[in-house]
């Protein structure tokens, strides 16, 4: 039995332009690697693939690189797509 959970995904800067959305709720499995989570987002918004090599995620406001790291997601958790920073 694969548990799923609903999380909020936030898109910023170039990723918001590519996904054409700033915020959406998605249902994903409760345990997922950061790379699988990214692939989930790309399957919903194929144009996101363009930034695959210059992106990280933030989960509950902490940075997570795309890779094998296993995330435990809870209902309502905030996931953000973080293109290269350009503040300052």
């Amino acid at each position, binding site marked *: 039995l694969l548990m799923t959970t609903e999380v909020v995904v936030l898109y910023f800067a170039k990723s918001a332009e590519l996904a054409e959305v700033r915020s959406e709720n998605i249902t994903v499995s409760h345990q997922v690697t950061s790379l699988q989570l990214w692939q989930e987002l790309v399957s919903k918004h194929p144009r996101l693939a363009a930034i695959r090599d210059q992106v990280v995620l933030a989960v509950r406001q902490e940075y997570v690189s795309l890779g094998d790291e296993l995330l435990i997601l809870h209902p309502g958790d905030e996931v953000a797509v973080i293109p*290269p920073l350009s503040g*300052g």
Partner: protein
Amino acid sequence: EVENADMSGCEIAANDIVKLTHDKLSTEEVSASVVCPSCGAVSLFIGITRNSFEGKKVVELEYEAYIPMAQSEMKKICWDVRQKWPSVKHIAIHHRLGVVPVSEASVIIAISSPHRSESLEAVKYCIDTLKATVPIWKKEIYETEDCSWKENKECRWAGSREK
């Protein structure tokens, strides 16, 4: 609380101010917010929007932020400063969001300390780290009406062209 002999006479507790705002930034306000009678030094850095990038004329810039995470990353920077330079007294980091016209400030950092080397070093650390870790993005809008999301070279997942 670490007591420091140099802090004698300053009754105000050490203070971190982080602010994201759509309003115009004020150098005087940020500077005044870190002055204290036991501190002989205030160092500031002001980031200003430039009029050109690779020969293209920039008309204006627009900043957006992941606001709660940006605030939390700015507070982490303040924490790091206090570990590295325990004599630092007050830290203020103001970042502007939305449209910022050319020649106006996008970021102002001010730090006070009893002696000058700590505040000078800490300001440099703050702006270097802010560019690498705080989730804020800048879009440059050019005279030619196209635009481009910028990438700080300090950001470790930025494209290799910019490294």
